[in-house]
């Protein structure tokens, strides 16, 4: 047995293997100083940690922002929808209120007149822009016939000229085929109102000596047996005095804007009502009262 035959290489490796844990145990047991050899590693570690920490913060922040954005977006959409709903409700409410007021006025008018009135709704306009007619949703089925007056609370609209079973065509006073007996409310002089264009009519055959002024009210004359007497037709906007003509040519603007009319009344018996008496009566009664 060769005792001296000792493998030093193996022994060194074995020693190293054992000593390293021992050294580490020793280092654990002692207070670790910030030794010079640890500093570069510490620095590297800190740098890497700081880098990752910043990155993670950034990702978290971005994710949070994105998530917030999604939340904000959905919340915004929700609020937007709610706002739209409220706006719609508000519009509907004001529309209902307007309709209520309009219907109340119509009902009052219908209740306070001697005329038999049939309410109707405008469902169409004339196909050719040159003509001014409207179509209403009442026809011969509802007792309508040609030559009945069509009016609103504020003034005359036109008259029925082509009644059908379910609907009727109404010739507006602004149509160039329309002719309505009229009188100037102030002077009581008669004339004929003819349509001129969609916004104007002409009052003809009024004697040139008549005292007519811009702004005077023109009312229905009642001689045509279509309209009740004294119902507003339009207001004088222009007066033409031709030197060779015996009569005046007076432009009038209808009191009812036919483009905005939605609901109308059809008069079944126009002769039952006289609005001139209604307007005159209070004055005469007050005069007699003073006397």
């Amino acid at each position, binding site marked *: 047995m060769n005792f001296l035959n000792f493998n030093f290489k193996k022994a060194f490796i074995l020693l190293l293997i054992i000593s390293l844990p021992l050294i580490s145990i020793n280092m654990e047991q002692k207070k670790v100083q910030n030794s010079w050899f640890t500093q570069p590693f510490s620095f590297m570690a800190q740098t890497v940690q700081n880098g990752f920490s910043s990155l993670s913060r950034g990702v978290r922040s971005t994710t949070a922002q994105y998530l917030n954005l999604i939340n904000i977006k959905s919340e915004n959409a929700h609020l937007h929808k709610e706002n739209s709903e409220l706006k719609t409700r508000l519009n509907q409410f004001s529309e209902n209120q307007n309709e209520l007021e309009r219907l109340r006025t119509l009902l009052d008018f219908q209740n306070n007149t001697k005329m038999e009135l049939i309410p109707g709704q405008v469902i*169409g306009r*004339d*196909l*050719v*822009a*040159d003509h001014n007619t409207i*179509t209403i949703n009442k026809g011969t089925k509802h007792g309508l016939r040609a030559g009945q007056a069509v009016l609103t609370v504020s003034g005359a609209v036109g008259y029925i000229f082509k009644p059908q079973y379910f609907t009727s065509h109404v010739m507006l006073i602004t149509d*160039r*085929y329309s002719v309505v007996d009229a009188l100037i409310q102030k002077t009581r002089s008669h004339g004929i109102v003819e349509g001129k*264009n969609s916004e104007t009519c002409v009052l003809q055959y009024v004697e040139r000596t008549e005292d007519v002024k811009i702004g005077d009210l023109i009312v229905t004359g009642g001689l045509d047996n279509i309209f009740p007497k004294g119902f507003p037709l339009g207001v004088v906007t222009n007066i033409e005095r031709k030197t060779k003509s015996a009569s005046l040519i007076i432009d009038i603007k209808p009191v009812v804007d036919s483009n905005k009319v939605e609901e109308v009344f059809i008069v079944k018996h126009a002769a039952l009502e006289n609005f001139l008496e209604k307007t005159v009566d209070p004055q005469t009664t007050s005069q007699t009262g003073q006397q």
Partner: protein
Amino acid sequence: MSSLRARFYLKIFFFTALFFALCGFQTSFWPNLITLLPSPQFWLMMIFFISLRWTPLFSVFYIYFLGFCLTRFSQIPLKMAWTTLLTTFCLLSLFKDRVRLSGALSFSFFTLLGSIIFEVSYVILSHSIEVNPTSFQFFDRLIQIIMNFIFSYPAYRVFEWLDHVFYDRQIWSATPEQNEDL
């Protein structure tokens, strides 16, 4: 009844139904939504389409029929409707082979031309044959012409499609020579 004849009747039926729908659209739909601008005259565009595409003899009578239908939606007298449409048809027929355009562009051009002819002839004929003639209303008529021109492209697509549905290529393209070949 042959297939060709059935298609022809169906075509007339659907075009007439479309004409009524277009008139209704103009009188009752558009004015309730848009009051600022006048409705484009789709019915007039349909008459232009018929004038340009269909056989002249049949087109004249069919346009008369449509002119009559037109008076159901308007106060326009029948004489005015027929004379104006006839004038428009004749002038469009005169021009249609002299313009080298095709498709939607051609139709838009003829809509512009036809609308101008329609409005001008309407004023002239109204002053000739009506007791109380129409006023000129230059800007109203100008806007109407522009609206027609703007909406002519979509209108053309619809008319073209409907015309094509009832167009049997095999029947119409079967000339005697082709038949012999077949």
